[in-house]
């Protein structure tokens, strides 16, 4: 009997905090999304129904935000996880300078993203006076001058993805290096005895041993990328719609503070759509992980 209460007792603090500060707002949001056209300042709404969802799905800026978010997710998550894996492998194979590299790689996590975003913006932006540092570099190599912050869509998307990957790398490298370090050397010794080739060692031993962590990074990576917003603001300023670089969360935020008193109803509808998307993808991820992740 005692056994069945303990788990719930252990979970109680978490449930309490999450309940008040996450579940309750979520329910609030659901309610808002069905109250059509709710206006913050006047505190009134037209009635209940699906109008909010319909409005959001028709809004060209929501669709643009949808596209942007998907592109960011599809590009940054696999790339950042892959590069992090490569770097972690590289790190675990060297002895000298490893500490130095690890410290350096972790720096982006420690600093304020708004400030770093500002720096990136300065480096990439084209002003009346100069083409921006990165653009100048490109011209050095014979390419055309590109305005990354105010210019064509692909340039903006490139900066965005580059910055996002730059920002999420430290955490992934950290997790993966710990995971690699915690693989029991017994297995490697056994492989050495059998004279197994390097790539086989990687795919048959290393990868499965660290697969829980890899999947953790993939799942949280997807979730985090879908929630991208503050990075965009750091690079492009707050008027993301005008820059064509809005994301779904940005759309939600803009809706909350609209110029005519705030529309929590549309914001909530958009947020629920986002939640549905992320929930679906996470469920798929979890199911795939159940098949492929190896636990001892």
């Amino acid at each position, binding site marked *: 009997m005692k056994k069945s209460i303990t788990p719930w007792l252990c979970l109680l603090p978490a449930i309490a905090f999450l309940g008040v500060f996450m579940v*309750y707002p979520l*329910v*609030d949001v*659901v*309610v*808002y999304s069905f*109250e*059509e*056209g*709710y*206006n*913050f*300042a*006047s*505190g*009134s*709404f*037209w009635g209940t129904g699906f*109008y909010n969802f*319909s*409005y959001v*799905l*028709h*809004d*060209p*800026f929501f*669709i643009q935000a*949808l*596209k942007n978010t998907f592109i960011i997710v599809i590009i940054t998550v696999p790339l950042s996880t892959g590069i992090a894996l490569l770097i972690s492998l590289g790190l675990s194979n060297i002895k000298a300078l490893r500490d130095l590299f690890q410290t350096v790689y972790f720096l982006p996590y420690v600093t304020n993203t708004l400030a770093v975003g500002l720096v990136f913006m300065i480096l990439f932006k084209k*002003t*009346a*006076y100069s083409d921006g540092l990165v653009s100048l570099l490109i011209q050095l190599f014979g390419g055309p001058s590109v305005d990354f912050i*105010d*210019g*064509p869509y692909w340039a903006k998307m490139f900066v965005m993805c580059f910055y996002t990957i730059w920002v999420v790398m430290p955490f992934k490298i950290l997790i993966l290096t710990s995971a690699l370090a915690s693989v029991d050397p017994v297995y490697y010794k056994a492989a050495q005895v059998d004279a197994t080739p390097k790539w086989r060692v990687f795919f048959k031993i290393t990868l499965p041993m660290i697969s829980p962590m890899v999947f953790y990074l993939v799942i949280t990576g997807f979730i985090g990328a879908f929630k991208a917003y503050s990075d965009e603001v750091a690079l492009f300023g707050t008027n993301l*719609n*005008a820059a064509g670089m809005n994301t779904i969360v940005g759309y939600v935020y803009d809706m909350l*503070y*609209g*110029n*005519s*008193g*705030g*529309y929590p109803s549309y914001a909530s509808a958009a947020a629920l*759509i986002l939640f*549905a*998307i992320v929930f*679906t993808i996470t*469920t*798929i991820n979890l*199911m795939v992980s159940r098949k492929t992740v190896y636990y001892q």
Partner: protein
Amino acid sequence: MIMKKSICLCACLILICGLLSGCHGKRGGSSFAVPETFDESKNIEITFWAKNDTNKTQTAIYNKAISDFESLYPNIKVNMRLYTDYGKIYNDVITNISTDTTPNVCITYPDHIATYITGNNTVIPLDDLFRDERFGLGGSEVRFDSVREEEIVPEFLAECVIGENHYALPFMRSTEACYVNKTFVEKLGYTLPETLTWDFVWEVSEAAMEKDSEGNFKINGGQVMIPFIYKSTDNMMIQSLKQLDAPYSDEAGNVLLFNDDTRKILQTVAAHTKNGAFSTFKISGYPANFLNAGQCIFAIDSTAGATWMGSKAPLVDIAKEKIIDFDTEVMTIPQFDPANPKMISQGPSVCVFNKADSDVVLASWLFAQFLITNEVQIAYSETEGYVPVTLKAQNAAEYREYLEAEGEDADLHYDVKIKAAKLLMDNTANTFVTPVFNGSTSVRDAAGQLIENVTKAVRRKKTVDDKFIDATYEEVKALYHLDSGTSGAGGGKKSLGPLPAASKTLIGTLIFAWVVIGFFVLKGKLKSNK
């Protein structure tokens, strides 16, 4: 067990939902009535949200006003919170309306107040307070030299009317002015007319784009020259439309901006952006920086930015070595009809929020009144090209002396700044404001965005033809939700039409994904059952 638990969970959720939807109703208090007496023994604390132009002197003036007021009314304490951006004040007020924690006094714009008053008695109408014998304007029991209603500049006071009531007191007023590099204009062989016209400005700007054999601009021998830079493109569009007597919006909240006069204006802008004769602040940067470095000839900015303009400007953002010597002329913005100049009237106003305790509201009103007394008005207007909103202050000896001392030094009596203030005072009858309604801010933003889009497009070498302008109209309408019927006019649902392709794909994919998931889950269950 799991079934029971999930049912319990769902029931709880539904219960909470029921409670919450009740909480989404209107909050707000009853309407305000002037109390019989002002309780002096009661300690009252009021919050004041102020805006300054990132200017330490202005902050100091606010602080002095607060301490002067507090010494007159020892039972009132004023807590100030500073902002540099009207948008942030607006966002914070909206957030706080829903929790009944709005400030007491706040510096804001009538456009924003129009949104605040959609709530229940959030902002109090001031007419009763104006006319109250004891505590109103010029009231008998006010402890300082209160300004009477007739002593406020009538045009400025009229701007604070929304519907039928005054919801604010004007605090400071400014307008837009064109700061001209007179030396360069004359170097190009032109003489400045008494009133600038659009044709003149475009002509001179195009002439300034001439380059010499080495690719430098002839006019300044340098690599950078943008002859005409406009800071606030929304004002550019609004003032141009007004000068042409063309529609923009009306009191009922109808958006009339997307018409053919607008189209002509946009095409003119596009034509002159082509070889770089025109640009905006959002694209290139502060006009003052370019003007002072001899890289701009016509810099249009608020008169409240006058201390940044000119060779001897007291406030500079660029390195001192880059500033060149030239004569600055402060003129009205370009006009289509120089005989009937029209320019916008801008500047902060003060509003008072409703609270449950009417003594608190009265105290807030007294403080708001204090802000338009001579001392505060004159001190604040001297920090920039602002003009006091009261005739009392404008005619005061101290202010007259200040105006006379134009040019005596390059600081308090900086000539460009005083010229800018005089410009507004001379043209008060020529100023106008746009109709105020819930959503008027969005229309204003849309007006500016049209010009920004066109200018950006030309710089990216796109063609700006009728088709492009039509597309921009649609984009801007969607961006600011001007077609959604949720702003002032309309206010109902609109019929939305068929779902766009992307949305259909999204929903389709989601449904498909869940079907597949369901399939696999079933498969797993069947396997384990076997």
